[in-house]
């Protein structure tokens, strides 16, 4: 049982939750994730570690309330409990001095971008962050990202903030003028695919942080398998970061959609059950 310290809405449908998990907080590194299960009947899902505080013994996650598990997680109140939190899982980001790093984030991925850019900055890199959202209201952690970035660019689909269009358009324009030493992308799989195809002609090393369906998150089930360089790899123990130029995004996008109908079914079932609170 893991106690929830706070659970706040930071944008419509997006929450930031702080959970007491001292042993994870002590070990967490940028780029890693945890697997959570909210209650006895719950599913196990991976969520990227956004922040951690070894002194407070807490970890912070940001999630969009889109599925059953994230809805349930959204309902856990301060002082309530999440049944299982396992981690930190996955290989940490390899932090070193590359030079100029462009970080590209989209949607909730912007939150995942934060700890990685923070560490890259600490290692002496010049950080250019590009963050995108559908609309300005959904733009999260802008201030925090600005703090760890030397340059920050914003794109919204509707133009309500920053550039009107996709964040990948910003990257395209940037590359026409300058070639960074590393591009790091985290966000919707389609965005990471576009980022990788934009950077490929420039030969810029491109790291993507994948978020496929997982069950155990420890290498036991293979649900998160993805084709990298023609070979099956497990995102949970071989990743979650891979060379974006070697990932077969199309099969990954297909795998992520596998349970779309079931996810809708589970949601309507949850709603029918009504507003029971979890973990309180």
């Amino acid at each position, binding site marked *: 049982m893991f106690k929830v310290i706070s659970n706040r809405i930071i944008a419509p449908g997006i929450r930031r939750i702080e959970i007491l998990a001292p*042993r*994870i907080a002590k*070990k967490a590194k940028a780029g890693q994730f945890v697997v959570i*299960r909210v209650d006895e*009947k*719950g*599913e*196990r899902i991976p969520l990227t570690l956004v922040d951690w505080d070894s002194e407070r013994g807490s970890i912070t996650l940001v999630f969009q309330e889109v599925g*059953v*598990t994230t809805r349930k997680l959204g309902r856990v109140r301060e002082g309530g409990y999440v*049944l*299982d*939190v*396992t*981690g*930190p*899982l996955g290989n940490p980001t390899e932090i070193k001095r590359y030079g100029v790093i462009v970080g590209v984030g989209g949607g909730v991925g912007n939150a995942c971008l934060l700890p990685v850019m923070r560490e890259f900055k600490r290692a002496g890199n010049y950080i250019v962050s590009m963050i995108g959202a559908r609309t300005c209201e959904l733009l999260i952690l802008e201030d925090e990202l600005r703090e760890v970035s030397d340059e920050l660019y914003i794109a919204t689909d509707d133009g309500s903030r920053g550039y009107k269009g996709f964040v990948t358009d910003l990257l395209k324009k940037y590359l026409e003028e300058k070639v960074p030493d590393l591009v790091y992308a985290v966000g919707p799989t389609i965005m990471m695919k576009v980022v990788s195809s934009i950077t490929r002609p420039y030969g810029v090393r491109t790291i993507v942080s994948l978020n496929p369906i997982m*069950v*155990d998150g*420890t*290498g*036991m*089930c*293979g*649900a998160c*398998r*993805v*084709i990298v360089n023609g070979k*099956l790899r497990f995102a949970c*123990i071989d990743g979650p970061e891979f060379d974006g130029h070697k990932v*077969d995004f199309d*099969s990954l996008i*297909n*795998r992520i*959609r*596998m*349970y779309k109908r*079931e*996810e809708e*079914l*589970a949601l309507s*079932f*949850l709603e029918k059950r009504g507003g029971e609170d979890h973990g309180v």
Partner: protein
Amino acid sequence: MVSKRAVPMRKLSMDKRLTTFEEVALGYTEEEALEEAKRCLKCKLMPCSRLCPLNIEVPEFVKCIERREYEKGLNIILKANPFPAITGRVCPQEVLCQKECTLRKLGDPLAIGRLERFLGDYQIENNIMNLNVPEKVRGSVAVVGSGPAGLMGAVELRKLGYEVTIFEALHEVGGVMVYGIPEFRLPRRVLRFYVDYVKKLGVRIEVDVVVGRTYTIDELLREYDAVLLATGAGTPKFLGIPGEELNGVYSANEFLIRINLMKAYRFPEYDTPIKLGKRIAVIGGGNTAMDVSRIALRLGAEEVIVLYRRTEVEMPARREEVENAKEEGVKFMFLTQPIALIGDEKGWIRKIKCIRMRLGEPDASGRRRPIPIPGSEFDVEVDNVIIAIGAEVNKLIQRTTPGLKVDKRGHVIVDKYGRTSIKRVYAAGDVVTGAATVIEALAAAKTVAHTIHRDLSG
């Protein structure tokens, strides 16, 4: 005059077998156990005891059953094996204790497994637990993994006077016995009884801890006098053919974890889904392939076909499980090797391209090697494929533990007493041998527990 035939085991009715996860083998009644126990010749050779990896004194406990001294018989088993209701169900007795039974000269060997289970069930019914442990604490041991080897190691070490903490990566205790073996072969109430016993002995169990990540081996060595690695062989193997990334393709492990651990068969009451069509192909010929096939039928599949590259004779699955699968309607295609998985425009598996095999000369395993017949390719149309061709050791601990020597398959290298290349770190079970049986893991863990005791008591 001794009966040539063993007393048969009653089974659950077929309609229930196909619609529920209730246990199929119902166990002996007292009368049946008494009748079967009478068949034991009490021969001096005792091949049963000799071939049992835990050397259980079989004729002794069988004698007790005959005399209706069930608790006494149970205690004879418990001296060697703390989990008789588990091993009585899942041991491959036909290749162990029953293999050289003298009765085989007349007919069936003594049904030792069924008699062991009878006493194990007696134990659970009567809640018999021997909770004596020494008062003096000799030291502390961290056990990594709560499967058969982990639980056995913990029990032995506790009985030797050690404080023991088990670390489990998943949210439930039992390892392969909770995520892998289905309920109809090992009811969860049996596992729960023994987990409860382990806890009552004073063993601490921490779930949601991935050793290698949450704690490193080094950190455990700072807190504990010794570490026992019992992490099993839990990483699924894939075929290495095109199309394994298609939707509708599961590893046996994923399928089993979704069903057994996450209870996807009760979706949407439980949140984890599973997506199965009407016609399901299971690739492989072991016990896992049988388990997966029988679960698929229970989930409403119209047709379940096992594809195996050799013939029925070479199948590694237990005879009993193959018979159960056949009775329930599982079909088999032998001498069939998949060479590609082919999907539709939506990326869902639709057919398996296969090639016919023939058997050649025996290979290293002693089984005749399957050889493809050129030009014999054919397609099998399916809605799902479940790949059950085995599991290998999880690489996580070796990757995060510098200095831990492993062989090229990732198995942790140990000396004959279970010591790894790192001082105070020991290993037992599948992580050492590769995927094997529950009983072998139990036996190995017992040996290693005594090594730890010897090493720590100097």
